[in-house]
């Protein structure tokens, strides 16, 4: 019996039964209702998690739905993932290196345009993204109608509308998470295409980098960071891989490709 209890209490976090346990990262701009969504989904079952990397993420909680167990990780609210602040770095590192099964991006329906910047940035890292258009009640009060289905079509990923404070939409949000994990939803994320000159540089750098990168990392995204001269991304990958990633050689090679 004692063994059973242990297994149960660990089942959401350390269980080898990976098949049924999923990590969901919660990202979004500040003040969009991320914590409200978090509390609604987890019922405040929070504890402090310690994920790989230097920073401890504060809020982590669990819930179950349709026989899947979820660990929800509330990332810091940011406008961007360009790591000009430590919050942005924490969010970026989690999405990139901890590789959540799904990144749930909470958006504010009353100012969707501003929120889509972060959505597009996250889509450059991973295509396992679900958009949650929150504050629908506020938007309606202001006479703003959001065409969620059109948004999903335009982005090529699923989107759900919610008013998290009252709980509206959260059941379908959980259903869509389940459908995504079950492979029932076709995902064709919109890929940003830059100017031809930039695209040439991106391709050149990406080709140089690709042989050295772990298969799970998006090499186009790494090439974009390098093109912005954010070489710290190479250090991060190297630390994460913990092996003979030849970062100095790589930096020199890549420097040759930089415009």
């Amino acid at each position, binding site marked *: 019996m004692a063994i059973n209890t242990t297994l149960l209490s660990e089942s959401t976090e350390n269980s080898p039964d990976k098949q049924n346990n999923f990590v969901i990262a919660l990202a979004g701009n500040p003040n969009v209702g991320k914590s409200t969504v978090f509390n609604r989904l987890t019922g405040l079952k929070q504890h402090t998690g310690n994920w790989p990397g230097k920073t401890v993420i504060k809020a982590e909680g669990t819930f179950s739905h349709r026989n899947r167990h979820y660990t929800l990780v509330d990332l810091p609210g940011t406008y961007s993932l*360009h790591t000009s602040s430590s919050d942005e770095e924490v969010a970026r590192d989690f999405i990139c290196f901890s590789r959540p099964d799904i990144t749930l991006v909470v958006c504010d329906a*009353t100012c969707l345009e501003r929120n889509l910047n972060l959505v597009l940035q996250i889509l450059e890292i991973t295509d396992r993204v679900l958009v949650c258009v929150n504050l629908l009640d506020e938007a309606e009060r202001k006479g703003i109608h959001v065409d969620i289905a059109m948004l999903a079509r335009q982005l090529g990923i699923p989107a759900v509308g919610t008013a998290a404070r009252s709980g509206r939409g959260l059941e379908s949000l959980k259903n869509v998470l389940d459908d995504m994990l079950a492979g029932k939803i076709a995902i064709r994320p919109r890929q940003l295409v830059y100017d031809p000159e930039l695209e040439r540089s991106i391709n050149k750098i990406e080709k140089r980098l690709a042989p050295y990168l772990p298969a799970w990392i998006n090499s186009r995204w790494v090439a974009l960071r390098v093109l912005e001269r954010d070489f710290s991304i190479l250090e991060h990958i190297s630390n994460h891989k913990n092996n003979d990633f030849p970062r100095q050689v790589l930096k020199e090679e890549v420097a040759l490709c930089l415009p």
Partner: protein
Amino acid sequence: MPHTLSLADIPIGASVRIAEILTPGNNRRRLLDLGLVPGARVEIIRRSPSGNPTAYLIKGAVIALRNENAAQIMVDTN
């Protein structure tokens, strides 16, 4: 004609349109990510008592900018 007015020159309550961002490098990127893109409408909400920073309404969020940053964001008043 070059733009002569920056965000730092605009009085409280005024609404302007961003014409050009002179800031280079990572700072430019940061400003773009905050929604300060050419064509975007910006409303000046208030200045702190010391005159710095100033709060701006940009694409539905209130963003505080220091005057040295605002001075590099050129605007149209129409």
